[in-house]
């Protein structure tokens, strides 16, 4: 991504069937949001230039790469959730991209086919599809859904009327028989993706993709680890962006660039350089995922002078904290390892979900936070329900907690700012 000449992508977008005026409006809005939230920050690591560039080309160069890949016979698989194993898709020669679900779009059309009181994430991905503004779904030969919640489950039925969709069944408990069932789902997914790409998954290809995706997670783990330092070497907003981009960027390139960023952050920690003064209030956020370009809460917290040092969420630690074992000899063992690793993720769709509570407390201690903010998207039954247990657990660990329920709209920013600032004043 070194070619910085301005390219007109409109012909490509038109070919993908995007609604060009709406799409231009969306890109304009995202650009402005990014400018306000990101480019106003002081003392950002130089390594963030790469992510700035990715954002400036968010529907441009990366989509062009996907487009070229597909025109050369490659297959692209779109996903909405980190339970869909990227290793399997890559081992079959496919590319995996996360799909747009982080902004309000075409809700008027969405609300004709689903209830108003559906969570913002679901409404958003449906809105991007109906409003014809997501080039990634247009570049996806197949969309893989998962049964992580009732809303998504039913939304995939609606989406399948408009797109090629395949749904994996994720168990909701973690007993041996659930792992066995989930392993079966992964085997079926493998067959499905092999059929799509026309390439067999082999022990060699899967071993390579396990390593490759682990390396991506390792780079993100390195970045996460530096955030335990006071002063924090990177803002929460920037670290969140890195995780958000991990879902759709080219894997080896992203890994390399994130390792460069991590090197710089290591140096910053060694020299005591930070993005906020030492002693700035440190916050851990836990809750529902924040899909690109949802930076709302981080922006409010950091503009109030605090720094977010961790995200216990799908766009955070849940994405990178666990690796797939690299010791397996056979394809079967690798599939076992993948099944096991993915069921280790502590999503609120599981019951019981003590693992998540333990993660929150462990991260809060490791990162030396002053307080925890529990973030739920409104109408996300699972996280809203679990919020009570999170609150209790964090209090029992001796830390203050603020519960926030919100959506992608900006109308509550005033009230949220008051609550966040009051929380920070209280710490």
């Amino acid at each position, binding site marked *: 991504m070194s070619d910085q000449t301005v390219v007109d992508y409109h012909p490509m977008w038109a070919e993908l069937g995007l609604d060009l005026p709406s799409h231009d409006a969306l890109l304009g809005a995202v650009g402005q949001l990014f400018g306000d939230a990101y480019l106003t920050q002081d003392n950002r690591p130089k390594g963030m230039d790469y992510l700035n560039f990715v954002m400036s080309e968010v529907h441009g160069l990366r989509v062009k790469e996907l487009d070229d890949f597909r025109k050369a016979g490659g297959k692209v698989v779109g996903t909405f959730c980190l339970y869909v194993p990227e290793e399997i898709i890559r081992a079959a020669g496919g590319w995996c991209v996360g799909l747009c679900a982080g902004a309000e779009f075409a809700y008027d059309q969405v609300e004709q086919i689903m209830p108003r009181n559906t969570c913002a994430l679901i409404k958003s991905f449906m809105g991007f599809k109906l409003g014809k503004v997501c080039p990634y779904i247009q570049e996806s030969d197949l969309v893989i859904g998962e049964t992580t919640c009732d809303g998504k489950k039913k939304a995939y039925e609606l989406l399948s009327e408009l797109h090629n969709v395949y749904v994996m069944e994720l168990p909701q408990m973690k007993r041996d028989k659930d792992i066995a069932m989930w392993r079966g789902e992964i085997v079926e997914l493998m067959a499905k993706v092999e059929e799509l790409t026309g390439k067999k998954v082999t022990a060699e290809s899967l071993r390579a993709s396990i390593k490759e995706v682990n390396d991506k997670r390792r780079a993100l783990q390195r970045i996460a680890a530096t955030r335990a330092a006071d002063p924090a070497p990177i803002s929460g907003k920037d670290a969140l962006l890195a995780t958000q981009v991990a879902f759709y960027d080219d894997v080896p390139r992203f890994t390399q660039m994130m390792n460069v960023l991590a090197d710089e952050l290591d140096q910053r920690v060694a020299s005591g350089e930070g993005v906020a003064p030492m002693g700035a209030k440190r916050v851990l956020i836990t809750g529902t995922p924040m899909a690109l370009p949802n930076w709302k809460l981080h922006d409010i917290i950091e503009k109030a002078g605090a720094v977010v040092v961790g995200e216990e969420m799908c766009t955070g630690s849940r994405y990178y904290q666990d690796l797939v074992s690299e010791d397996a000899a056979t394809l079967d063992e690798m599939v076992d390892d993948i099944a096991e690793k993915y069921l280790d993720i502590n999503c609120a769709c599981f019951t019981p979900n003590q693992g998540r509570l333990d993660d929150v407390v462990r991260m809060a201690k490791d990162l030396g936070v002053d307080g925890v903010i529990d973030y739920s998207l409104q109408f996300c039954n699972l996280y809203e329900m679990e919020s009570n247990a999170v609150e209790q657990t964090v209090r029992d660990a001796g830390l203050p907690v603020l519960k926030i329920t919100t959506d992608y709209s900006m109308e509550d920013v005033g009230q949220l700012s008051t609550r966040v600032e*009051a929380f920070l004043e*209280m710490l």
Partner: protein
Amino acid sequence: MRVLGLDIGSRSVDAVWLDDGRTVDWAVADSGFDPGSAAAVFVERGLHDVIISTGYGRHAARERFGGTAVTEITAYGAGASTLFPDAASVLDIGGQDTKVISLGEGGRVTDFEMNDKCAAGTGKFLEVMAHALGFSLEELAEEALAAESGASISSMCTVFAESEVTGLVHRGEDRARIARGLHESIAKRTLSSLQRVGARAPLVFAGGVAKNPAMVALIRAGFAGDVYVPAEAQIVGAYGAALTGNGAAATLGTGQLEATESECPATP
């Protein structure tokens, strides 16, 4: 040091002038459509060395007039605990939001809860309902207080509750009973909010809605322990903001807000 505390809220702009912690003067103006200009009138009196702003307009005020800003939560905590040194919690029902605050040692905020983006159960809610019933705000409270029982109101959303009230009126329900029902439903919601933050007695009930005798009576009836109501309940935020100008409210001890003496027999 002379400090001007400004509380720029959705319904009113309140000002309190302190000189070395002593109240010199206070004033209240309607926010109207230009709360900044309402505040400017107070600033232009020139009776201060520093300004501390709170309320929705705090950041705008800081940018326009200088000084610093604190949230209403911290300001109400400081104001209430200075007026009533034994206060353990605060309830503030303002024009468009409700806050419940738990206080620790020296008036420090230890926990709080604030309503989300909707204005259910706030001053604005009461205004809309008074209008729907053809009462003034004062009449709404008086009628509610006088009614023997309340009509059942299930909606807390301002829009839904208004239709519910209209429905009740059309079915011939007594207006006073509806007024009481509205107050009861706010009180019920507020009391559960107080419970969630573990609010202990004594409770200070402040904010514009604390001037409503029906709300005060219902909160008193439902809360276990003393409920103090400052006579000038509306300016506690501005007072608290001004107090934080001298450093943490915790270090202040008891201030004197001459205008604030309880008019309720149950308060000290």
